[in-house]
Structure formats: C-alpha cells, structure tokens
C-alpha cells in the first residue's frame, strides 16, 4: 500500500543532501585557464548561462534531466548556481581576463585569491613559499567551501607542473590538504610541459621534479595531460597547424568534463570519484592516469570530418596511441594496469560485449601479468543540451606503465640541468632565496629519488613478480 501521502516534497527542499561534492582548486595561469574551460563545458552540459542561471531550455525541465549539478555547484539565495571553485593565482593576467569576460559573475568573488600580484616568476619555490605565507587565508576559503558541503568527496586541483604558481602553490596545497583532509580524495589534472621542444622556462625541470614528488606522495589520483600530446593531436589530428592555448585547453576541458560525467549523470556504477578510481588504481603509488577521447572536435572553423561511430570503433580509437593525451609508447612498451571507458550516447548494450571480444581477439591492449585486469565500460548519458554530430563518443582513463617514460624524461631533463658543469646547479639562486632551500638543496635530491622510485615501481608493475615488489 502506498504510504507517505502529501508531505515529503516540501521537506526535501530544506533537508540535507548527499551530493558527494567536489571542490575544484585552480592554481596558476594554466590551472585557471583549463579550469575556466572546464566550467564553461559544465555550464553547457547542465544548461547554465555564464552568470550561473538556468538557460531557458534548461528551466523547462524543472526536475533536471537526471543530472546532478550539486556535485560541482551550489545554489545561491537567488537560485543561481555557483561553482565550488577556489581560484588562485599570483599573476593578475588570467584572473583579470576572467573578471572582465562573459563569466565575470560566475565565480564566487570571495574565492578568487591573488595573494601576491608579482607572480611567481616561474620559480617553484616562490610559489610554494607564497602559498605558505598566506595559507591561513587560502584555507579559510577552502574550509568555508568544505563546510558548505554536506559530504565532501574530495578536491580537484588543476595546475601545470612546469610554471611557478601552479607547481609551487599546487605542491604546497597538496601537502596541506593531505594533512588537513586525510579522508578526502585528492585528484589533480596536471599539465605536463612539452618536453620535446625547448621551453622558455629554463627551470622547468626543477619545477617538474619538485611537483612530481608531491603528486606522487600526496595526490590520490593524477590525470596527466601532456602538452606535447595535445599539440600533436591538435595539429595532426584536427589539422590545426599552430594550436593556440585556447584550442588545446578546450581538448582538456572535454576530457575533464567527460571524466566527471558518471558523477554528474548517475547510473548503475561509478557514481562517485572513489568508485571511479578504486578500480583504476590498484596500488597506491601507480596513480597516474592517461586519457584519450574520441571523436574530438574543436569548435573552430577547423574541418573535422564526422566519422561513423560505433562502440567498437570508439573503443578501438581510444586505444590508439595517437589519440592518447600523453606522449608515450603505449603499444610498444609496458602494459595497461587498468582501463575505464566512459561511453556516451546512443549505445546498444549488446554491442559492448562484442566490442570487448573483438579487442581481446585483436590483442589491442596489453595488460599486466600479475593480476586480473580488463577494460571496464561505463555507459553514461549525454547531456541533452549539447548537440553533437556523433552518435557515440568515448573517454578512456587508463593506468598504463608506459607513463613512466614521461617521468623518465623529466628526470633526464632534470639531470641534464642539475649536472651541468659548474660549482652549483644553474639558475639555483632564485630557489635559494626561499626558506625551503636556504639551508640545503637536499629537497631536489629527495624529490629526484621519489620520482626515480616511481619510475622503478612502474617498471616493476610490468613484470609478473610485481606482487613481491618492495621499495
């Protein structure tokens, strides 16, 4: 017999909810740029306008379209949606651009923090120590956001590892968040510099190694975004000869949005971050994930052909190294520890099995020899507000041992710079100005060792005896 008549609906408005909120922290120029792109994408997918109000189309669906906005947003008193985001930068450039742009009223202005307008000058140590000096202010904001949530799931940090602010400040935040919120997940979207071409930031190897150490020790999950791969995909794949940051960033935002789609459109499984990562990351240190997305398009004039998309074709393309947003030889070297494919769109569930079968027959993915592993497939709904030409699209999040080659390159570049002839390593003066390096440069050596160990663990994970692995 049906019960609970009449009441209920009214109560629900005020009652506590359990959205498993995620707070996004954007640090530095790069972090803010990709963060902004991510929010733009979310607004699009949830039918929100740049000021956080529901678009006309979206307000037609009073109960939503099965989406959960409250994971990433909360509602202000006037009902407009405010992102759970903390914006940090030491350079006013990007923040001013946001403040003067279409999304000027999007963020909560209290959460935009610029403790020092001088910039970090691409020095990790400066970013780190600046963050340390204003940590009370920063954590006031973060704590406020955390208290604002009913059941905080974790934090997402967007940053680059090469510059000064994102890497230094980001590193500091990772360490502190880990102490302060030990039970919360810490996920990052970390942009790795293009290590093929020479960079204008000479100290990039230092910054990278120092940040990598924190990513290895303090983060629970790092989604690696390799600038080199982004450029390659943009130029080779999407035929944009010299891709701009905006263009490559839109690739990143696509991936970020897709990787959170199961959280925002709940289904049978993978409805929270932990469910997403628990099966992807079997051992705690091997938590660096690579992604690929297909079919990709950038909403510019660039001609992108509409291809036939089936579950199989999408899953095949996702495994192709050229589509993977990290430049490393996934086919030639190493093996997959785990794979999760998030397939969106109009999918016949019977196709999934057939596609998996085909992939195994063709041996398109090489897996670890020390334990069971498979391609997990999550079917997710597509936002009704975003119209795409493709029937099916897919995101792959994969844990592949070849990612160690990226760290290997970081080490290589670091060593080249570190071991340059001279009494002391070049460009080190700037670091020595900061408290951490005043006494000694041991931190560099220490960070190097951590990264070295990480590479070693990934190498070990390629062998059957990984089960007996010990650091």
């Amino acid at each position, binding site marked *: 017999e*049906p*019960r*609970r*008549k009449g009441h*209920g*609906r009214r109560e*629900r408005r005020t*009652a*506590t*909810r*359990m*959205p498993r909120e995620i707070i996004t922290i954007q640090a530095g120029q790069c972090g803010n740029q990709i963060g902004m792109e991510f929010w733009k994408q979310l607004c699009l997918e949830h039918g929100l306008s740049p000021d956080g109000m529901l678009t006309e189309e979206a307000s037609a669906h009073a*109960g*939503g379209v*099965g989406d*959960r906005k409250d994971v990433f947003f909360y509602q202000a008193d006037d009902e407009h949606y405010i992102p759970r985001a903390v914006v940090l930068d030491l350079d006013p450039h990007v923040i001013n651009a946001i403040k003067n742009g279409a999304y000027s009223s999007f963020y909560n202005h209290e959460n935009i923090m610029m403790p020092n307008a001088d910039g970090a000058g691409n020095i990790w140590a400066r970013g780190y120590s600046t963050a340390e000096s204003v940590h009370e202010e920063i954590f006031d904001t973060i704590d406020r956001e955390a208290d604002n949530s*009913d059941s905080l799931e974790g934090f997402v940090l967007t940053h680059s590892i090469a510059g000064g602010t994102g890497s230094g400040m980001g590193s500091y935040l990772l360490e502190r968040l880990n102490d302060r919120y*030990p*039970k*919360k*997940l810490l996920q990052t979207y970390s942009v790795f510099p293009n290590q093929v071409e020479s960079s204008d930031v000479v100290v990039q190897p230092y910054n990278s190694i120092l940040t990598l150490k924190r990513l290895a*020790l*303090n983060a*629970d999950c790092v989604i690696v975004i390799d600038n080199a791969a982004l450029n390659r995909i943009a130029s080779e794949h999407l035929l944009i000869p010299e891709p701009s940051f905006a263009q490559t960033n839109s690739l990143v935002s696509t991936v970020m949005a897709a990787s959170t789609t199961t959280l925002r459109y*709940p*289904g*049978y*499984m*993978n*409805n*929270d971050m*932990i*469910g997403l990562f*628990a*099966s992807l990351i*079997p*051992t*705690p240190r091997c938590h660096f994930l690579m992604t690929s997305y297909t079919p990709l398009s950038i909403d510019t004039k660039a001609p992108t052909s509409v291809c036939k998309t089936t579950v199989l074709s999408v899953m095949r393309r996702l495994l192709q190294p050229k589509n993977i947003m990290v430049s490393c030889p996934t086919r030639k070297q190493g093996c997959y520890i785990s794979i999760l494919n998030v397939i969106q769109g109009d999918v016949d*569930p*019977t196709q*999934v*099995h057939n596609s*998996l*079968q085909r992939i*195994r027959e063709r041996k398109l993915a090489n*897996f670890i*020899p*020390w*334990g*069971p*592993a*498979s*391609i*997990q*497939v999550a079917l997710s709904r597509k936002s009704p507000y975003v119209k795409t030409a493709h029937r099916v699209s897919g995101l792959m999040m994969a844990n592949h041992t070849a990612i160690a080659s990226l760290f290997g390159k970081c080490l290589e570049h670091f060593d080249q710079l570190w071991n340059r002839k001279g009494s002391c390593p070049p460009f080190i003066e700037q670091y020595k100005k900061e408290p951490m390096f005043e006494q000694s440069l041991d931190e560099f050596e220490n960070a190097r060792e951590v990264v070295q160990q990480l590479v070693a663990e990934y190498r070990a994970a390629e062998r*059957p005896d990984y*089960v*007996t*692995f*010990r650091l």
Partner: protein
Amino acid sequence: AEVMSEAVYPVVQALVRATVGAGAGSGETAVVNEALLSLLDTRAQSRRSADLHEATSRIEKHCLYFGQQDKVPAISRLSQGLLTKAKSTNSAALVAYLDLLRQMFVLRSTRYTIGADLPPLPAATAAALTPSNTLAATATYALNTLGSTGSSLSTLTLTGGGASGRELAITPAAANAVAGEVAPVRVCSTVANFQQSTVGTPTELTMLRDIVFSMQGVAGTVTCLSEEKKELQLKPAAGLSAPQFLMTERLMEPGWLFRKIDEYVKTPCSGLVAKSFNCALETEIKEYYRLVAVLDNQLRVKDAATAAADASGGLSLWRLQVWTEQPTKRLFVLALLADTVRGKRGGAVASAVHSFARHGDPHVYAVVAHVLSQVARPIFAMIQQWVTEGEISDLEGEFFVAVDATVAPGRTWQDKYSLRDAMIPSFISHQTAQKIFLIGKSINFMKQCCQETYHFPSVAFNAEELDYNKMESFDRYISNACDKASNRLISIMFDKYELMKHCVAVKRYLLLGQGDFIQYLMSLVESQLSQPAHTLYRHNLTSVLESAIRGSNAQFDDPDVLKRLDIHLDKETQGKTGWDTFSLCYAVDVPISTVFTPEVMQTYLLIFRLLWRVKRVEHALTTVWRTHASCAHLLRRVQDLSADLHGARILQNEMMHFVSNVQYYIMFEVLECSWTQLETEIRQAADFDQLIAAHEKYLKRILEKALLTNATEQMQTVLQSILSVIISACAAQENLYDTAFKLVQTQTGDSVLQEEDTVDLQQMLPEVRQQVSVTAMQYRKLFAKFTECLSKHAIDPNIQFLMFRLDFNEYYTNQEKHVLRPVADSYIDEEPPPEQQPDAAAAAVVSPRDTSRAASASKPHYTYATGVVSPRDTSRKKPT
C-alpha cells in the same frame, strides 16, 4: 457414414456396370436408364452413403412402380444361385440371400401375389435365424463385410447369379443397412414376424387407419403397445400377410420416431441452449402434426370413397408410403439429433447439432441447419453481450467463458475468467473462441479495474445470417474486435496507468539503476543493517529511505513513484543480520498489479537481494580502498609492513576486479540487454496477455542470466560465499591498516597510546597478518571453485560472457598453465562454509582456533598461485 461411402463406391461402380449390361440384354431400358442417370447424378454430386442410399432406393422405387413382372424370375434365379453358394456356408452369401428375400417380398406384394417359385428357406438360413445366431449380428457382419470388402461382395454376387441385373437386389439392401442403424434389425424382425403371420387379413382401410393412429402413438386394431408400453407393435396374430406386415411396419416408423422425439421434448432440460433445442424440435413436431391431420383428412375421404366405389382415389398404403417418406426422413434426423444431444448442455449441445451440419444430403442439411440456428441463438446472444459489454449472464454455466466471482481484484485478469473448452460450439474455432474470450476479458478488465468505459467500435454481427460451415466473416469480425479491444486496453495501461513508468521505476529502484540513490541508501543503512535482524525497526529504515530519496536525484522522480517505494523486512529474523532481511519494495495497485503480481515482486526481491549484496561488497571494497588511500603516504614509513600492505592491495585489486566485473556483467549482459529486449517486446505486444508474458519473460531472462535459477544454484552458492569472504577480507584489511596506522603513530611519536598498548600492538600484528592471509587464501580458493563451476557450464553463452569478463587479460588462464592445482584442497573443506555466517566470518577468522588451523594449513598454500604471501612469510619470521 462418411467412411463407409469410400468403401461403398466400388460397389456402386459395379452396380452401374451391371445395370448397363442388364439394360442392353433384357430390354428394361426405362428402368435401367433412370437408375443409371440417378446413379451418375449421385456420383457426380456426392459420394456420401446417404446420397447413395437415396439413389439406390430410387432405383428400388422404379423397380417397384414400373417393376416388370419378368424381373421376378430373374431375381428368383439369382436367389437360386446364391443358395448354391450359401451352401458352402458363406455367411456373406446368406445375408445377401436374406436381403434378396425381402426384395422379392416387396416385389410380390406389389402384385399382391405370392409366387409359387419362392424358394424354400434352406436349413442353413433357418439355423441363421435362430436366436443363438441373431440376425442383428448377421446384419452387422454384412455391414462390416460391405465396409471392408465391398468389392468382393459384388464379385460374389456376380459369380452367384447369371443375369447381370441382379446386383440391384443386393446393394440397395446393404446400403439400407448402412444408412440407418434400425434398418437391419427391422429387416430381420420383419422376416421373423413373417414366419409367424398366418391367419386373417385385415382390410387396407383398417391398416391405413391404424397407421395414422400409430403416427400419433395410439394403438389400433392391428397394433398394440408393447409390454414395456413404449413401442407400438403389430399384433402377431393380426392376420397380416407378409407383404402387408412389412409395409405396415415400414409405415409405422414415423410414429415410432415421433414418440422418441416427443419423449425427449417432454423430458425437462436445463439451460438455454438445450431449451432452444427442444423448442426447435417442437416446431418440427408441429409440422408433423399438420401432416397427420392432412392424412387423417385423406382417410376420411377414403372412408367416403370406399363406400362409393373402388380404391382409385384417396389414400392407399403405397401413397401413404410415398407421402411419408420425406417427413420420416426428417423425423429420423431429428430423432438422431435428440439422441446425440441427450444429456448435453450449453455449447456442447450446439457442437452435437453442428456435427450433423456437414451432411451432404440437402434435406438433412436443411433440417439440421434450422435446428442449429435455433440452438445457436442463445450462444450468440451471450457472445454478443460478452464482446460488447464484457458481461456474462449465464446462470446455467452454458457459455464457454466461465467466471469465478471469488477472485480477488488483483488477479482479475489472470484468474477471474476462464475458457471452458467443452462448451465451445464446434462451429467456433478454438482460436476464435480464444479471441472472444480475450475481447470480453479486456472489456471487463477495462470496466472493472481501469474505470474506463469501452464502446464497441463497430456494429455487432447478425447471428441469423451466419452460415455455420463458413464462419470466416465471423472470425474476421471477432479478430478485428479483438485487436481493437486489446489495443485500447494496452493504450490505457500505457497512457492512463503509465505502465512503462512503473517498469522504469522498478528497474531504477529495485534493480539499482538509480546509482546515486542506492549508494546513498547504502551508506545510510550500513551501520543499521550490520545489526541482528530483530533489532531493526521499520520506521527507522523508512526515514532513512526518505533521506536517501531527498539526498539523491531520486527526489526529482515522479512523486507517485516515490510514494510507492518502501522498505521490506523479512519476517524471519532468526540468526540473520539486517543485510539478509532488508530489501526495497514497490507497491502497485490495480490494474498495474496485474503485471506486477506478488509472484513477480517476489522475483524482483530475489534479484534485488543479489544486486544489493554485490553492491554492498563493492561498497566495502571502496571503503577499504579509501582507508588505504587516506593513510598510504603515512604507512609508507613502516617498512616492515610494506610487503603486507602491498599484498593486501594486490588482493584487493583481484577482489575489486571480480566484483566490478560481476557488476558489469549484471549491468550489461543481464539487466540492460534484457531491458532492451523487453522494450521491443512490449512495443510488439498485441494484447495484454502478451504484455504480461513479455514482462515475465524479461524477469525469467534476468534470473537465468544472473545465475538465480535452480540449474545454476551451485554457482550462486559459490558466488555468495565469495562475496562473504570479500566482506571478511575487507574487515581483515581494515584491521591491518588500523594496526599499521597505530604503529606509524608510535614510531613518529604522535601516538596517544601507552607503552603497554604498543607492546600489544606488536603482539597483535601476526594475528592481523594471519587474518589477511587466511581471507586471501579463502578468496582465491573459492574463486578457483567458482571458475571451475563456470567452466562446467561453459556452453551457456551467458556464462561465457561472465568468464570472458572475469579473465579478460587471461591472467587466470595463464596462472593455471604455470601452476599445478592447489594442494590444499582439504583446507577449505574443513573450514565452515563462510556463507553460513557471512558477517561473522570476519570475527571467526580471528578466533585462536582458526588462527592455529590456518597457520598449519597455510604452508602448502604458498605454493599455490602467485605466491603473493611468500614475502610476508619471510617477514613474519623476522624477529619483530
């Protein structure tokens, strides 16, 4: 009779040949031609015995009317020939002879002379006439012979007689026997009576009067009522000559038939159909009365005429015979109908009458058709009411749809109405009857359960104009009406009662489709459900459900759906935890409950339990993962535990892989694929029955694929044990992390513990390790058992899907190749099966008894599988 016609046909052919021969030889051209024509006619039209009988008797009649005297010697010659043959004790010949005799008497009586050349009855024949060898038996034999060896009989007659015209005498008699059951007996009794009739000949007038009396069932001068007062009989001592006797007896047949019918009509009967059958008989009887009245009148004319002069006008025995021939046939059919219908009710009466409606004889058909139209009238009236209003007014239980008024509203569709197969009139095909049944049931259901009025879309059929042998138009009409009613009902179910909404809701909540809701619910009820079942309170859980709805996207669901969602707790709580008794349920009411019957809901409950359990295990695993993730960076500092932690994570990965792939399997291969099929089948369902069937098929498919059927019981048991072991393993691992964390704290000096506690910690460590390794072993052992079970059923594609998923990277296959089967088979068998104490399993492992046993048994296990445990083994030997 129809079967006989095939056998008789060769005889007819022989007859035709003989007649042609006779016509050419003896100059009886007129007779022969007539006979030939009518026979050919018969042959062209029908092969039925009745028609044959008709034709042969017509030939006989011709012989009688135009019957030439010179035919008599020919027949007598034939009889002589036959007698010769009969001496060789061929009983077929004897029968032929008897019939011949009758024929001769008939011929003789025409002339009112009894020839001197009548052959005396041979001894053999006399013997045949004795009671011990009854003539009825002989006649039956003749019948059989005719049936099986018709041609040999005709051959016999040909060899028996010289003249070719003689077959005429035999075949009609035989056919007579075929046409009516009464005939052979009558033939025999005739002969018997003839033997006795000796004295005093009444006048024709007396006989005529007596016959007209007999037609009304009244005894006269030459007739009397038999001892049983049932039948009129000729008085043996009435002094009739043999031909007179025979003739009178023949003419008394209508009277006999009339009495039979009248008696039937007067027997009280129940049921509208039977009554209308009686009514039809009565109408016919009225016709018969009219005939009798006319005859009576004629008789008076005859009376007057006799006084005046010669018998040239008015009634004679011969005329009477001709005039009563058709009515007699009619009465015969009616009597036959009455006999068949006797004791039957409702539709069965109509079926009985209809069984004569295929008669080839147009006269017979006309009679039957008339009666049938009367009989069918109440049935069609009931059909009419049923298919237009969905109502039955059938007090006597004659309709082929039975109603059970005691059925509860929830089962209206399934159980209230049923089809009575015996009551389906044979002119309505079973298929059409099914459709009629469905139409009325649908209309009734719409009225009773859906509060919908349904107006029958087209003009109803006209029962009067139906041809009972051509029911196509009726069938078409019914199937058209059936489609309309079914479509209407289906659209009511979909539009007004939103069947699909409920299907989706059940899938979302009972089959865990609404992931965020389920997850939230899980985290809310977790602590409560770990308690013993009898400590659970429904109202607590109900409020938890409320919060889970509010806290998840379920809040945006239709309020109607949400208010139906509820908690179900098993009544049986003995020795169970909340996990075992808790489930969600979904309340439905009429008419949706017709699809979601209590049995169906029970099935959903079964599926829910499995999904919920798997979900719970996943939840436990992610919780452990989170625990480790949150302290991983700290635990790194305890070097002597790193191997244990690493091993634990590797095992966790295996278990996680298992659980998530079981979940993926259930999600895609089981739920989603079945759902896709359900959607197609529901769209294709032509009527409500098919709709229900589609849904039941959907559930059955899920049960089968989710290994919940009896056939896969073993696998299910192992699966459940694995899930239990994972829960214990998770507890053991939590314990490990906890201990490790405390150790870290003591090492770093953050600890709030006293020194003795630290010592305790060190002592506990081996025990904690033991727990982890024992659960690891149990898990791997059970997993091997599970894959073994799966491989036994490897032909089943669903199992293949599951196996494929579980061993996607062929890790287990390779493992089997490299490693011998585990040595410690006995180990697990000794262990109490974990599924019995799912949540106590974790606790059980810690008990010293288990620890010691596990320690002794764990040694051989290290050779098994990956050897994960071996480093831990070495670390354990280190002094701590």
